[in-house]
């Protein structure tokens, strides 16, 4: 090497070796840049596949197949509203076996189906919710009794899957859930124009159900809202006050150091550990009610607290010292400086952090599994101590259900959840852009 060093010659940049070297370097450059670009595109592709796949299934979840049947509202089954009192009539209608009405109607459409077994199979093409549908119609309008009306009834999940093309009619019968006989009935109804696909409001307005065509997300949405309310009521004030204290007032000693390290660590603790805490403390020690949004909210509040504290501290730190100095110079007390000047200026950042924390809490499932929020709950919860599920838990429950029609319900519920999350994140971004101050 030392020999070479002695006889240094100026590099000939135009020599063929050098040209090749530069070419090689440029090629490497291109490759590297391409690699980076590929990484970004890959990430984008993952997102598109994820959303696309779920949206592809989920959009079916918002529509539902109905079958239109000529329903004879027979007096012999429903009772005569003109001859009995209103209360008696309603009681009678509640008790009445609506299946017989539907059966009679189906007999009209399929006079050649005679055996009891076949008739039951025929009845199974209509959702179990159809009974309640007819009952409510009669209760709302007693004058229907004695007439025959064309009524649009919900179809069962199998017919629904067939209509949506998710059960392949061309497969051999043995491998298909819907048998040839039922397929024939379905075809006949379809040719008569009685099968239709409509927007399904039940999905947005009702609670859970064992029947996919009757299941809805309103119960879970209310449960999520109640849970978030508790979370917000606890995490927001405590988080902001802690951030103010640590950033503006805390003396620099070992205790505050400990708190700081501690908060950073809490932010990285897996969410399921918070669930264990909730199980042991809120359920085990404090005996709060199981499956209640109150417990879920408390657990999630502890989980979101570090997020809010860290965001608020960053936002408070970003307020320039000159503002504090100016306020101090005009005679404001430290407390006045903070509450009149620093906090209002930091508020957009604090709110952004809070919303992001809330969005995290809304999507969180694991801690809720630990505190009994995974249950079959039909009724819409009315308060924070009622039993409830939350949206992500409902997704988890449906993802486990045997009926295959639940796949699209699950995806549809995911779409609703994602809509909420994107709305919340959008709000946070809007707040940040609208109120962000550059000093």
């Amino acid at each position: 090497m030392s020999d070479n060093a002695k006889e240094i010659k100026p590099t000939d940049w135009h020599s063929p070796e050098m040209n090749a070297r530069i070419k090689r370097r440029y090629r490497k450059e291109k490759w590297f840049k391409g690699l980076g670009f590929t990484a970004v595109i890959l990430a984008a592709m993952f997102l598109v596949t994820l959303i696309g796949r779920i949206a592809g299934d989920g959009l079916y979840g918002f529509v539902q197949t109905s079958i239109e049947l000529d329903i004879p509202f027979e007096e012999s089954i429903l009772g005569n509203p003109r001859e009995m009192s209103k209360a008696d009539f309603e009681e009678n209608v509640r008790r009445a076996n609506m299946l017989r009405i539907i059966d009679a109607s189906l007999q009209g459409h399929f006079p050649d189906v005679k055996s009891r077994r076949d008739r039951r199979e025929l009845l199974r093409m209509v959702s179990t919710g159809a009974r309640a549908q007819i009952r409510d119609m009669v209760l709302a309008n007693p004058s229907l009794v004695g007439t025959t009306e064309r009524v649009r009834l919900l179809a069962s999940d199998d017919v629904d899957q067939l209509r949506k093309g998710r059960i392949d009619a061309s497969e051999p019968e043995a491998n298909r859930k819907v048998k040839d006989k039922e397929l024939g009935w379905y075809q006949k109804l379809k040719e008569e124009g009685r099968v239709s696909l409509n927007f399904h409001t039940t999905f947005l307005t009702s609670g859970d159900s064992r029947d996919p065509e009757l299941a809805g997300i309103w119960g879970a949405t209310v449960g999520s809202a109640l849970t978030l309310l508790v979370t917000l009521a606890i995490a927001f004030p405590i988080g902001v006050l802690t951030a103010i204290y640590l950033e503006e007032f805390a003396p620099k000693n070992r205790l505050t150091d400990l708190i700081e390290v501690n908060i950073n660590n809490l932010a990285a603790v897996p969410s399921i550990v918070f669930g264990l805490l909730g199980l042991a403390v809120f359920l085990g020690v404090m005996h709060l009610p199981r499956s209640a949004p109150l417990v879920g909210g408390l657990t999630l509040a502890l989980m979101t607290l570090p997020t809010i504290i860290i965001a608020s501290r960053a936002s408070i730190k970003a307020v320039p010292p000159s503002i504090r100095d100016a306020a101090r110079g005009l005679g404001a007390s430290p407390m006045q400086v903070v509450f009149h000047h620093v906090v209002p200026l930091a508020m957009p950042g604090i709110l952004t952090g809070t919303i992001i924390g809330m969005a995290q809490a809304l999507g969180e499932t694991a801690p809720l599994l630990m505190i009994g929020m995974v249950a079959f709950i039909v009724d819409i919860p009315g308060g924070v101590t009622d039993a409830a599920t939350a949206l992500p838990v409902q997704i988890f429950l449906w993802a486990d259900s045997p009926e295959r029609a639940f796949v699209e319900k699950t995806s549809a519920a995911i779409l609703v959840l994602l809509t909420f999350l994107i709305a919340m994140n959008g709000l946070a971004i809007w707040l940040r852009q609208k109120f962000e101050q550059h000093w």
Partner: protein
Amino acid sequence: MTSSAIFLFLVMLALGSFVFARQKALAGAGGDPAKLHSLPRHYGYFAATCVLLPGLFAFGIWVIFGNSIIEGLILSGVPDRVFEQNGDQATLVLNRIRLAVENPNSPETDPDILAAAAKFQAIYLKGIWAAFVLSISLGLVGLYVAVNRTKPDFRARNKFERVVLITLGMSSVIAIATTLGIVASLLFESLRFFQEVSIAEFVFGLHWSPQTALRADQVASAGAFGAVPLFAGTLLISFIAMLVAGPIGLLAAIYLTQYASQRMRKIAKPMLEVLAGVPTVVYGFFAALTVAPLFRDMGITLGLDIASESALAAGIVMGIMIIPFVSSLSDDAITAVPKSLKDGSLALGATPSETIKQVVLPAALPGIVGAFLLAISRAVGETMIVVMAAGMQPNLTANPFEAVTTVTVQIVALLTGDQEFDSAKTLSAFALGLALFVSTMVLNVIALKIVRKYREVYD
């Protein structure tokens, strides 16, 4: 009259005393604020605090204990006969009374219950009025004290700010309390677990089969608590996740900070944020429904034996989940490298990629390592993806095509279902939780240390 009404009354009283004290202070100074020690509203704040603190204290006592007091009073009036009817369970008797109270048409026929229900309303009213009178009168005492002290030379602002400062300090203690709560609850249950199973077996045991017999006459399983297969499974899945997230996240961060146009950044950054915001249960659903069957079918065409809940599927989806995490943290580390270093290298004729590889990345390395460590700790603690897409079999294997189970899966499996706090099976979930807590915390502390050290070099 309800509890919230008491609360509202207190708030209104506080508002009233604010106005009153403010006026009184002003009047005491002859209408000239300059003669007061503090601003007039500080006297108001002080008075409001004096009203609220004792008032809310009494209210809090009512909220926490009021119920049990009323219940005790009601139950003491119910004859023993009714208790015997309900297996000596006070909650059952109470429920009957409550139902009778809430629903006047309830089918309840027992005269004693009905009598108690009739009494309930009266006692409840007495109780709530007592709570009302107590909290309001405590508030009024506070008001009296405050008004007495409202003189022009009273240091109202300092007093009030003292209260605020204490409130601030107390809320910051809650974060500590949470950690203590976690540690205490995990430790308490874990210690009970380690009384039954030795620590050595838990930490070094190679066999995990927690199904201890639930009843004495059930001999189906023996029960073994060696956690090594769980940690091995967790590590395997996290490793696969990092194989995906590490390169993609880092390269994306490099591209977005060094090459991408402003417009591209504007599109790509929110996209990564959306990817980060997707709930994990959605990733789990995606993994179980789409990715796992895809790999299985691929395995069949390639002649490979890939389990339907292979570590590979769960790991790759988890990798996708932590891409944004890696990329945003690496992004921060890369942008923090002083521009002068980069410019110097470019000026010497290095191509951008050479600059990045030989100057920027080494300078940002501690930050990137920290980012990777934080991402690993995220992957280790992730629950829903593995619960939905990974297996339940505690396999000790490094084969990504086989099914493995993880610590978090086992916690969920052990605790959803039978929630009694005494069998070794349930307690072992807390021991696993403790192990998880400790390991993520250690990872986190190391990561933060590395990041902090790196900051000292350039700032």
